[in-house]
């Protein structure tokens, strides 16, 4: 196995680079060969390094350098949260605080290879100790931990833009999947240097090579719609995503010698990376994707292809029906109980769910007035205004800076949410937290409407750690023919910040209306737990 790759080396490389340039998908064999080559190179490097000064190491591990043969040494591993997965790139320069029990003070500074060797050994022992019956004493204390899979939280890439190693890793992954990498644009405010900031004028699709058989055309179209803002709003995005996936499934044919369940999931991975590059995935989209992947992998292998495809399509339809359409109906039923005649209701931006509720309430002949609050630069409220006025609801329209003027006459505030986090915080369009704050000051009840499929297990306390930065050029405005910020790029100390989301603390929110009922904000983790048990 170790040798078969070598003699073909140069030929293979040509083939692979050629097919990459042509935009053809690498066949499975070519991919395997690539992988093997890389492993060879790694092994050769390590062998060379190891020939350097190799002292007497306490663990007899020259053998364990060759991965991965589990060496059950009796050495007690030090208490380290050792990363369990080997493919973490070795060049990750994070200083592994290797405090092995042989005190490093006695020995001369170990070479990098020796540290690597020790680490590998520890990983092997960890893996070995996962099986019961291992005799190391301190392993027993670690046993409960290691049985749960030593968990190293993998941070999503899109919040680690300032870490060059992560960016490199992403670039490599995208190259493998043949998806272009989108470059950041403009001066980023230092507080947000860990996030991406793209320009709308440079869509990703311009960098795609043609013809591209790697990415399905409906996905390309979807990605473009996302990045240009044509499809916006978490429900709309999820539904569009699911429809695009349905198209992909319809056009999919299983290659020979492959199982549908595994291959389809692998096919979807580059699509998801592409969409992520166009616009970071929302929590609702993430949940939908998880569901689809689960459904695909649950397809029994004996299933015929046609049958499997229809089943999948039905699953997706059912998901949309249940989680979005019916949920909206249920939520409006609960919400209408909360709307009484003579109410003056304040809404912010354009939330499909809140608009739906208001239209339903109007049809049930409740008498109320609506105040639509809007904010620059997206000005989504105008869309909501159009929809409501077309139904005949009497509306008022203000900008968010006029909030404290208009709030004394408001009786209720209805807000939509993009996601509900596990610590009760509501993640929604930027400005929502402001509205909740001022409403709480004026003692106006704030009701958030959110379907359960948007509940998310993340925890966030402020709007900085994970957010989306929109095109900063949107903040420019031309009044009386003069654009003040026209040359903001030229001025080095000027930055424009265009946030998309913010988080609202749960004490500003009085009630969350979901399809499961009306719950307080802090019950979100309970709902998540119940949902996980169900699945």
């Amino acid at each position, binding site marked *: 196995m170790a040798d078969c790759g070598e003699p073909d080396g140069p030929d293979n490389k040509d083939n692979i680079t050629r097919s990459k340039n042509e935009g053809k998908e690498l066949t499975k064999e070519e991919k395997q060969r690539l992988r093997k080559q890389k492993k060879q190179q790694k092994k050769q490097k390590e062998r060379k390094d190891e020939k350097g000064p190799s002292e007497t190491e306490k663990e007899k591990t020259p053998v364990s350098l060759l991965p991965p043969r589990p060496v059950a040494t009796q050495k007690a591993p030090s208490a380290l949260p050792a990363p369990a997965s080997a493919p973490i790139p070795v060049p990750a320069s994070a200083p592994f605080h290797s405090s092995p029990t042989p005190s490093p003070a006695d020995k001369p500074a170990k070479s990098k290879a020796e540290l690597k060797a020790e680490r590998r050994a520890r990983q092997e022992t960890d893996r070995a100790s996962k099986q019961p019956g291992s005799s190391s004493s301190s392993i027993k204390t670690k046993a409960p931990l290691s049985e749960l899979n030593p968990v190293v939280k993998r941070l999503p890439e899109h919040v680690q833009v300032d870490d060059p190693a992560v960016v490199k890793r992403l670039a490599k992954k995208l190259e493998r999947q043949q998806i272009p990498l989108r470059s950041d644009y403009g001066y980023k*405010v*230092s*507080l947000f240097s860990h996030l991406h900031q793209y320009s709308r004028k440079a869509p990703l699709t311009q960098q795609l090579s043609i013809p591209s058989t790697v990415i399905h055309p409906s996905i390309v179209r979807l990605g473009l719609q996302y990045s240009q803002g044509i499809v916006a709003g978490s429900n709309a995005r999820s539904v569009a995503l699911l429809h695009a996936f349905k198209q992909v499934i319809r056009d999919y044919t299983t290659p020979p010698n492959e199982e549908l369940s595994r291959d389809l999931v692998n096919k979807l991975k580059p699509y998801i990376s592409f969409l992520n590059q166009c616009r970071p995935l929302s929590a609702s989209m993430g949940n939908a994707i998880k569901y689809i992947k689960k459904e695909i992998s649950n397809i029994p292998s004996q299933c015929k292809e046609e049958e499997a495809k229809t089943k999948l399509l039905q699953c997706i339809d059912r998901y949309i029906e249940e989680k979005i359409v019916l949920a909206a109906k249920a939520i409006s039923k609960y919400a209408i109980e909360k709307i009484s005649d003579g109410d003056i209701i304040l809404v912010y931006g354009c939330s499909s769910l809140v608009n739906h509720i208001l239209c339903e309430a109007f049809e049930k002949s409740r008498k109320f007035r609506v105040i639509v609050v809007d*904010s*620059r*630069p997206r000005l989504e409220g*105008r869309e909501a*205004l*159009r929809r409501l*006025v077309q139904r005949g609801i*009497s*509306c*008022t*329209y*203000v*900008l*968010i*800076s*006029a*909030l*404290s*003027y*208009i709030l*004394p006459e408001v009786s209720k505030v209805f807000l939509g949410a993009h996601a509900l986090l596990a610590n009760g915080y509501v993640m929604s*369009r*930027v*400005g929502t*937290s*402001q509205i909740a*704050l*001022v409403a709480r*000051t004026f003692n106006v009840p704030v009701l958030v409407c959110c379907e359960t499929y948007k509940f998310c297990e993340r925890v966030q306390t*402020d*709007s*900085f750690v994970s957010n989306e930065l929109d095109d900063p050029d949107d*903040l*420019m*405005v031309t*009044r*009386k023919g003069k654009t*003040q*910020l026209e040359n*903001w790029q030229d*001025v080095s*100390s*000027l*930055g*424009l*910040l*265009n*946030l998309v989301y*913010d*988080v609202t603390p749960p004490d500003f929110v009085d009630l969350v209306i979901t399809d499961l009922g009306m719950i307080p904000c802090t019950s979100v983790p309970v709902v998540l737990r119940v949902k996980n048990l169900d699945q």
Partner: protein
Amino acid sequence: MPGADKEADLTERIEAFLADLKRGGCGTGPIRGSGETARETTALLRKVTAQARWSSAGDLMEIIRKEGRRMTAAQPSETTVGNMVLRVLKIIREEYARSRGSSEETDQQESLHKLLTSGGLSEENFRQHFVHLKANVIEAINELLTELDGTTDNIAMQALEHIHSNEVIMTVGRSRTVEAFLKDAARKRKFHVIVAECAPFCQGHEMATNLSKTGIETTVIADAAIFAVMSRVNKVIIGTQTVLANGGLRAVNGTHTVALAARHHSTPLIVCAPMFKLSPQFPNEEDTFHKFVSPHEVLPFTEGEILSKVNVHCPVFDM
């Protein structure tokens, strides 16, 4: 006749000033700063003092009161006009009292005592004629003018006491006083400024470009992001249009939100206001002093088909 010419000239100037006030206040937001208004008002009142015909302090005060009422009626939201008129009246009273020979402190004490004991109208009816009253009054008004010129600098000189290095400061919209304040501090300290543009007029943009030209690290954010970034802000420094008698502010739209957010995060809020913005008006209820401008800034006429069915509000000030 030269006298009549001068009078005509004077009335012409007053008319021009009134028209300017009326125009400048509405439409696209204040295009003249409050400082300029104050200065022009004072200059105009000086001219009135110089050129109008009056024989005693009482007459002068009547004339000035009349002009003052006309000016405030032209633009009620521009309170600096009224403030300046009140200052000038006070100057006249002081000069009169000084000319009469009694010192100010005893005068005040006397008047209080007199109020309590006599209970009748004060004898001060400003009827006496003094030769040098005119000159004194004009001199005092000149002093007032020089004071006005120096207010921004005086405020800016205190900047270093309030800003330490590596701070993040938030400000709202555009205020010349705050701009001078920050620029002065930037000469010695390095800090970061976040400017909230103030829709719909977006004066924050101009403020940001001015600040960044002097090398201050500036960031422009949308109004909606004020609460989101407030947790990282160390101080909020704002300017205001008026400081009311109960300590409240009448400031640009959106300031109330900033104040609430700052209170939530326990961030100190500093207001830079020159003394001609202090006003004796008292807000009895929230709505008394609002001013609105054309809502087309908010919802442009291109959205024609729904305009007729929608109410649009565009308040300029926040209480």
